[in-house]
C-alpha cells in the first residue's frame, strides 16, 4: 500500500513539473517564444489541446511584450515562403490538438517593446470564441 502511495506521489510530481498548463478543457503544451532585440519581431510556438466535445476557436493572442500580436501561417509555394495573416483565428476540433510550429502556423510578436533573451519569460493571453481567456507564462528559448 505504501509503494502505491509513493507512485501516486511521483505521478503527481511529474504532472506538476510537466511543461503544460491546463484548465482541464484546454491544455497548453510546450509553448515557447524566440529571442529578439527590442524593435525586432519574434514568434511563439506550442500546442493547444481541446479536451471538450465542441470545436473551439482561438480568436486572438495578446502580449504586452509586443506592439501587435497576430496569428500567421507560413505557406510554401514553388520554393517561396509566404506569410499569411490568419485574422479569423484557428479552430481546434474537439478532442484534438492544434500546433503552432516553425515554418507553419505561428503567433507573431511584432515589434518587441524590449529585448527577449534566453531564460526570460513573457505573459501571453489567449482569447477564445467560447471559453474564458487563458493566461500563460511562456519561456524564451531557441527551439
Amino acid at each position, binding site marked *: 500500500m505504501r509503494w502505491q502511495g509513493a507512485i501516486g506521489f511521483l505521478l503527481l510530481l511529474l504532472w506538476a513539473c510537466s511543461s503544460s498548463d491546463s484548465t482541464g478543457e484546454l491544455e497548453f503544451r510546450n509553448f515557447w517564444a*524566440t*529571442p*529578439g*532585440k527590442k524593435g*525586432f*519581431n*519574434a*514568434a511563439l510556438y506550442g500546442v493547444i489541446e481541446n479536451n471538450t466535445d465542441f470545436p473551439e476557436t482561438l480568436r486572438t493572442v495578446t502580449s504586452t511584450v509586443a*506592439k*501587435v500580436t497576430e496569428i*500567421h501561417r*507560413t505557406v*510554401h509555394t514553388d*520554393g*517561396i*515562403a*509566404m*506569410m499569411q495573416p490568419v485574422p479569423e483565428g484557428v479552430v481546434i476540433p474537439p478532442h484534438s490538438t492544434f500546433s503552432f510550429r*516553425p*515554418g507553419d502556423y*505561428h503567433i*507573431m*510578436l*511584432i*515589434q518587441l517593446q524590449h529585448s527577449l533573451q534566453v531564460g526570460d519569460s513573457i505573459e501571453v493571453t489567449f482569447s477564445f470564441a467560447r471559453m474564458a481567456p487563458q493566461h500563460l507564462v511562456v519561456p524564451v528559448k*531557441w*527551439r
Partner: protein
Amino acid sequence: MTRSKIAENNETPESHRSRWFSGIPFLLIVGILLVQCSSEFPVEHDLSRKAFRLIDQNGHSVVFPADFRDTVLLVAFIYTACPDICPLTTDRLLEMSKRIPKELPVRFVLITLDPQRDTPQQLRDYAALYQLDLKRWRLLTGTIATIDSLRSVMEIYAVRSPLKKLPDGTAYYFINHTDALCLFDHRGRERQRYKGSEADVEKVVRDVQQLLSQQ
C-alpha cells in the same frame, strides 16, 4: 608503312578498325562518368564576372562575390524582421558553421532582402542576437537597386506584403521570398541550392567538404 606494321602484328585493317570501334563504348562510359563526376555540382548561376557593391554589418564596402574569392561560401537570403523562416535558416546555417572546422576556407554570408530597413546597425544587432562569429560571417546590405540586381541574377524572389499599421501609426510589412541557401565555389559560382529553412545540415556540410576537395 602503317599497313606493314599492322601486318607484323598479325592484324588486318578490318580487325584493327573493329577493335578501335569496340573501344568506343568503353571510352563513352568513361566520358559519361567523368562528366557526371564533374557535374555533381553543376554551375547554377555564374557570378564570377559580376561585381555587386554591398555594405557589410560594419559599414565596410564589399564587392560580392569577388571579395570572397578562394573561399567556399554558404549564402542565405534573409531579412531581420522575418520572424519565422529566416530564423530557421540562420539557425541551420549556424549549426553548419559549428560542424565545419574554422581553419577551412569557408565563409557564411547573409544577404538582406530588405535593404530599406536592414541598415548595418540592424545587421550587427541580428549578428549579436545569434552570436555569430564575425570572423567567419558577413551580413550584407546595399542599395535597393543593387540588391534587386543581385536577386534578379540569382533568381531570388522577394515581394513585400501589403503595408499594415501599428497602433502608433508606424507602417510595417513582411516579405514573401524564396527560401534559399546557396553553395558558392571559390570562383564565385553558385553550385548548389537548398531550401534554407529545411536544409539538411549533414548533407550541406558533406557537400561543402566535397566542393573543397575538388578545388
